[in-house]
C-alpha cells in the first residue's frame, strides 16, 4: 500500500518535526509514532481534525525536546560586551540574549509575534496561491515546451485573443507548421452507462498524438493510433486512473473490453497514468475525428490547439509560422476568416485565467499593506521600548560597546521576533489555505489549474523566511538606529522620560500617520470589494433566482438523434413536471442564467442591412419551452409568450430582449419585424414579444442583446430543466431527477444546483476576493487601533509629570484632555488624507481588474473614513482619560 500519499500526516509538519527533534532522541521512532496516531485520529476525526491534531502534537513534542536540549547545556550569559571576543561568539551571545529578553517580556513579545504572524501568514497565503495558480499551474512534464495556439477574433473584447480554432483551420495549421507538432482538443463530456447507474464524465476528444505531446505514457494498454482519427474508426477510449479505480474497481482485464459512452460502444484501449487529468479534470479521452461536414465549416471554432515545441525552437518561431498560415487563410476564405489572426502563448501562461493574475496583484498589494502595517506596529512598540531601555543602552555604550554593537543587538532581537512570527505563521497559513480549499466548490475548482497543488510547501516557507527577514529590516532597523544614538548623560538626566529628544517624537508621529494611511487604504479597498460583491450577488438581474432548482439533461446521441425524439422526451418531461405536486413552474432552457456557459449567434435584421462592413451583429440565443418567463419571473414588456401553437410547422417566431429591441430596431416597434440567425440558411423569425433584460454573467458589464426561440422550433439534446417550488428548492432536486429517470432510466442528470447556487458559484472568485479583502480590512483596522493606542498610551505616560503639574496649577481637565487628544487627532487627520489618496489608487486598480464589478463610490470612502477616525479617537481617548485621573501630587512626586 502506498501510504505516504495523501493519507499521511501533513508533510510540512512532519518535516519540521524531524528537523527539530533531530538525531537527539531517535527522530524516526517519534515521527513514526505520531504518524501511527495520526492514522488512528483520521478515522476518529476525519482528515482536517487529524491534521490539526498533528500540528498541535508535533509542536508540543518539538517544543519539549528543544527545551530539554537547551537545558542540557546552558552557560551563563553576560549582557555586556566582553573585550576581545570574536564576531561569531558575540553574535551567538546576542542571539541568546535576545531569546532571553523575549521570554522575559512575554506579553510584549507575544503581541509582536502575533502581529507579525498575522501579517506574514496573510502574505504566505497569497504567495501560495500565486505560486500554485500562476507560476506553476500544473504538473505536466516540460510544461515550458508546450504552447497553446489561440485564434484572435477581430471583434475585440477582453478575451478576443483567447478564441478557439475551427477544425478546418486546425488541419491547415497542422499541415503547414514545421516548428512544432500541433494537436487539438474538443470538449466531450460523456455519459458512461452499464453495470451501475449512468454517470456524466468530464472528457475530451483529442488528436491521436495527445498523450505523447503531453509527455505522458499510458499506464496500461496503448494511446490512440493515427488511423483512429477517422470517422467510424474512432470508437475507442482511454480512461483515467481515477475512473478505472472508481467505476471498474481497478479491474486488470479492463483494457480490451467495451463500455457504453454516449450510448455508443467504445473499446477501452488504455488507462492513463495516475493523477493525469489534463485538461480540466478529464476522466475519459477519445480520438478526435473530423467529419467532412465539420471540415467544411470554418466559422465553427471550438478546438483548443496545443503544440509541443521541437528542440531549440522558440515560441516566436511558431507564432510567425502559424500567423503566416492564418494570413493566407484570411485571403482564401474571406467570409469566415477575415480579420482573424493567431496568438501563440506558453501553455502555463495561457491556462491562467485572464482575470486571475491582475486579481492576485490586487490581493498582493493588500497583503503587503497588511504586512507593512504589522511592521509599522511592531516598529512602534520597539521604539517605545527602546525609549524605556535608553538607560540600559546608554550604559552599554558607556561601558565600551560600539554603536554598531548596540545596533546589532537590537536588530538581532528584531530578527528573533521575526523568526518567531514566521514560525507561528506557518500553521496560520496552512489553516487559511485549508479554508480556501474548503470554500471552493469542486465543479469550479476543476477549472482552476493548479488548485489542487496549492499547499504550504518549501517554496512558500522560503518565501515566508525572506519576508520575515525583509520585515525585520523594515521594523527593526529604524528603531535600532534611533536608539543607538544615545548619550549617557542625556539618558540618565532625563530619567528615561524624553528619550532621544525631538527626533524620536517625529519618528513616532510619522508612524501614526503611516499606520492610519495604510489602514484606511485597506479598509476602503475591503469596503469596495464587499460592496461590489454583494451588489453582484443580490442585484436584480431581471429574473428571480430564489426557489428555483436547475438540472441539466444531455440526451444520449444514439437514442435521441432526431429533433422529434428530443422534443418528445423534453416536452413530456416538462408536462410531467408541471403536473407534479409542489411545483409552481417548470420549463427548459438551453443555458441557465448566471451559468458559465453561453450560446451566441450572429444575426441579420430584415430591412436593416449592415452598412458598415466591419459591423458584426450578434446576440445571445436562448431556446426555451413555453412557461419559461413565468417560471423565472422574467417580465414580458410587450407582445406574447410562446405557446402550444408555436410548432415546427407554424411561423418561426422569437421573443427579443429590451436591449436587442433598442439596439437593432432603433425607435421602432420590433413586434412583427423579422430577423434571422444561423446565416443565410436560417429561417426568418418574426418577433412576437419583448422581454426584460437578463444580466447573464457578473463580469460582463454590458447586457448582451438576447433573443428567445421556442424549443419546439429549435429542439436540442442538451437542456436545463428549471423547476420553481413554493419555498426552499432543495427537495425539487430529487423530484426532478426522478422525473427524468422515470422517462429513461439510462439518462444521467447532472449539474443539479439551485439557481441561487449557480449564481454564487459564478461569482465565487469575486466572493473570494471580497472575503480576503474583508479579512485584511478588519486586520488593518485592528492593527491600526492597537498601534494608535500604544503610541497614545506611551505619549501620555511620558507626560504624566507635565499633566500633573498643569492640573496642580489649576488647568481644567477638559483643556488638558483636549490638548492630549489634539495631537493624536491631528496626526490621524494627516494619515486619513494620505490614506484617501492610497485608497483611491487601489480602488481604481480594482475597478479595472475585476471587470467593473467594483466601483469607486464616495459613500464607501466617507463611511470608512468615519469608521477609522472613530477608532482612532477611541484608541486615543482611553489613555488620555487615564491621564486625567492621575492625582497631581502623585504625578509630580512620581519622578
Amino acid at each position: 500500500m502506498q501510504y505516504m500519499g495523501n493519507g499521511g500526516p501533513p508533510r510540512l509538519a512532519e518535516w519540521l518535526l524531524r528537523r527539530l527533534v533531530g538525531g537527539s532522541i531517535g527522530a524516526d521512532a517519534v515521527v513514526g509514532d505520531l504518524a501511527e496516531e495520526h492514522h488512528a485520529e483520521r478515522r476518529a476525526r476525519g482528515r482536517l481534525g487529524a491534521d490539526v491534531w498533528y500540528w498541535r502534537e508535533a509542536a508540543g513534542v518539538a517544543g519539549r525536546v528543544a527545551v530539554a536540549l537547551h537545558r542540557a547545556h546552558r552557560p551563563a550569559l553576560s549582557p555586556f560586551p566582553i573585550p576581545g571576543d570574536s564576531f561569531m561568539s558575540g553574535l551567538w551571545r546576542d542571539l541568546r540574549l535576545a531569546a532571553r529578553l523575549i521570554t522575559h517580556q512575554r506579553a510584549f513579545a507575544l503581541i509582536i509575534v502575533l502581529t507579525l504572524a498575522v501579517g506574514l501568514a496573510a502574505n504566505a497565503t497569497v504567495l501560495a496561491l500565486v505560486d500554485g495558480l500562476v507560476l506553476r499551474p500544473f504538473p505536466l512534464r516540460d510544461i515550458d515546451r508546450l504552447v497553446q495556439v489561440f485564434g484572435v477574433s477581430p471583434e475585440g473584447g477582453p478575451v478576443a485573443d483567447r478564441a478557439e480554432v475551427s477544425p478546418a483551420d486546425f488541419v491547415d495549421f497542422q499541415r503547414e507548421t514545421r516548428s512544432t507538432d500541433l494537436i487539438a482538443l474538443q470538449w466531450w463530456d460523456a455519459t458512461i452507462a452499464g453495470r451501475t447507474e449512468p454517470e456524466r464524465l468530464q472528457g475530451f476528444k483529442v488528436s491521436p498524438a495527445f498523450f505523447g505531446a503531453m509527455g505522458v505514457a499510458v499506464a496500461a494498454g496503448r494511446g490512440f493510433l493515427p488511423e483512429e482519427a477517422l470517422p467510424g474508426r474512432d470508437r475507442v477510449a482511454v480512461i483515467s486512473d481515477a475512473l478505472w479505480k472508481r467505476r471498474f474497481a481497478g479491474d486488470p482485464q479492463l483494457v480490451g473490453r467495451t463500455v457504453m459512452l454516449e450510448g455508443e460502444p467504445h473499446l477501452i484501449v488504455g488507462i492513463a497514468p495516475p493523477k493525469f487529468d489534463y485538461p480540466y479534470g478529464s476522466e475519459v479521452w477519445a480520438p478526435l475525428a473530423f467529419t467532412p461536414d465539420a471540415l467544411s465549416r470554418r466559422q465553427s471554432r471550438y478546438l483548443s490547439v496545443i503544440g509541443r515545441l521541437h528542440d531549440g525552437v522558440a515560441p516566436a518561431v511558431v507564432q510567425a509560422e502559424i500567423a503566416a498560415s492564418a494570413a493566407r487563410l484570411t485571403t482564401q476564405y474571406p467570409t469566415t476568416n477575415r480579420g482573424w489572426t493567431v496568438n501563440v502563448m506558453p501553455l502555463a501562461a495561457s491556462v491562467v485565467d485572464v482575470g486571475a493574475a491582475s486579481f492576485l496583484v490586487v490581493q498582493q498589494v493588500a497583503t503587503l499593506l497588511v504586512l507593512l502595517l504589522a511592521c509599522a506596529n511592531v516598529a512602534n512598540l520597539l521604539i517605545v521600548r527602546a525609549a524605556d531601555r535608553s538607560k540600559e543602552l546608554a550604559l552599554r555604550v558607556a561601558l565600551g560597546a560600539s554603536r554598531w554593537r548596540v545596533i546589532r543587538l537590537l536588530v538581532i532581537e528584531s530578527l528573533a521576533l521575526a523568526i518567531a512570527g514566521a514560525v507561528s505563521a506557518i500553521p496560520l497559513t496552512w489553516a487559511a489555505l485549508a479554508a480556501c480549499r474548503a470554500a471552493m466548490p469542486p465543479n469550479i475548482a476543476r477549472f482552476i489549474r493548479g488548485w489542487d497543488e496549492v499547499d504550504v510547501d518549501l517554496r512558500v516557507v522560503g518565501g515566508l523566511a525572506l519576508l520575515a527577514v525583509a520585515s525585520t529590516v523594515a521594523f527593526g532597523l529604524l528603531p535600532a538606529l534611533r536608539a543607538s544614538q544615545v548619550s549617557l548623560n542625556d539618558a540618565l538626566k532625563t530619567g528615561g522620560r524624553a528619550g532621544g529628544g525631538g527626533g524620536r517624537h517625529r519618528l513616532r508621529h510619522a508612524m501614526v500617520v503611516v499606520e492610519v494611511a495604510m489602514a484606511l487604504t485597506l479598509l476602503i479597498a475591503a469596503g469596495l470589494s464587499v460592496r461590489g460583491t454583494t451588489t453582484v450577488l443580490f442585484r436584480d438581474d431581471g429574473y428571480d433566482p430564489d426557489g428555483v432548482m436547475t438540472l441539466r439533461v444531455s440526451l444520449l446521441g444514439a437514442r435521441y438523434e432526431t429533433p422529434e425524439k428530443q422534443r418528445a422526451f423534453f416536452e413530456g418531461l416538462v408536462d410531467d413536471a408541471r403536473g407534479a405536486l409542489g411545483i409552481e413552474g417548470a420549463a427548459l432552457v438551453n443555458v441557465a442564467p448566471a451559468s458559465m456557459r453561453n450560446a451566441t449567434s450572429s444575426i441579420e435584421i430584415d430591412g436593416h442591412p449592415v452598412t458598415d462592413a466591419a459591423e458584426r451583429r450578434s446576440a445571445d440565443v436562448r431556446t426555451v419551452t413555453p412557461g419559461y418567463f413565468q417560471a423565472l419571473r422574467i417580465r414580458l414588456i410587450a407582445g406574447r409568450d410562446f405557446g402550444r401553437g408555436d410548432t415546427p410547422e407554424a411561423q418561426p417566431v422569437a421573443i427579443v430582449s429590451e436591449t436587442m429591441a433598442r439596439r437593432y430596431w432603433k425607435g421602432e416597434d420590433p413586434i412583427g419585424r423579422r430577423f434571422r440567425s444561423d446565416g443565410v440558411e436560417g429561417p426568418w423569425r418574426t418577433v412576437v414579444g419583448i422581454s426584460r433584460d437578463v444580466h447573464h454573467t457578473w463580469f460582463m458589464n454590458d447586457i448582451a442583446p438576447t433573443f428567445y426561440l421556442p424549443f419546439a422550433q429549435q429542439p436540442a439534446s442538451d437542456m436545463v430543466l428549471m423547476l420553481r417550488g413554493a419555498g426552499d428548492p432543495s427537495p425539487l432536486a430529487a423530484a426532478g431527477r426522478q422525473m427524468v429517470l422515470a422517462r429513461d432510466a439510462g439518462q444521467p442528470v447532472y449539474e443539479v444546483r439551485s439557481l441561487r447556487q449557480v449564481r454564487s458559484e459564478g461569482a465565487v472568485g469575486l466572493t473570494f476576493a471580497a472575503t480576503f479583502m474583508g479579512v485584511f480590512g478588519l486586520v488593518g483596522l485592528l492593527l491600526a487601533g492597537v498601534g494608535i493606542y500604544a503610541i497614545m498610551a506611551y505619549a501620555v505616560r511620558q507626560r504624566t509629570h507635565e499633566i500633573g503639574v498643569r492640573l496642580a496649577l489649576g488647568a481644567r481637565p477638559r483643556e488638558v484632555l483636549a490638548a492630549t487628544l489634539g495631537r493624536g487627532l491631528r496626526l490621524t487627520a494627516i494619515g486619513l488624507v494620505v490614506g484617501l489618496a492610497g485608497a483611491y489608487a487601489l480602488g481604481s486598480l480594482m475597478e479595472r481588474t475585476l471587470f467593473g464589478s467594483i466601483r469607486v463610490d464616495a459613500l464607501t470612502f466617507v463611511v470608512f473614513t468615519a469608521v477609522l477616525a472613530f477608532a482612532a479617537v477611541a484608541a486615543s481617548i482611553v489613555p488620555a482619560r487615564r491621564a486625567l485621573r492621575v492625582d497631581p501630587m502623585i504625578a509630580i512626586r512620581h519622578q
Partner: protein
Amino acid sequence: MDTYLGEFEHLVLLAVLRVGDDAYAVPVRAEIESRGGRTVSRGALYTTLDRLEQKGLLRSRLGDPLPERGGRARRYYSVSQRGLASLRAAREAIDGLSAGVTLESKRATS
C-alpha cells in the same frame, strides 16, 4: 548504588513493565494515562524515555517498518536489570517509609 528515580521516571518504568513486549511510546503513554490517572504530554514521555535509556534503566530495540507509520519502525523498550533494581529499591524505600503511617487525613478542628 542505584540511580535515584524521579516520580515520572518511576511511572514510566512501571508502565513499560506492565505493557510488556509491545512497549513502545504510544501504549506506554496510554497505560500511564489510564492506570496512572494523569495526562502525559508526548514530549515529556519521549525525553524521559531517552533519559532513562541513557541512565541504563531502559533498553530499546527497533521493530519492523510498518506501512501505517509511513514505513518507519517502532522503538520497543524493556526494563534493564539495572532498571529493575532501581524499581525494587524505590519500592522498598516507599514501603519502609509508609509502614505504620496512617494516610487518612485528620479531622480539621478549628
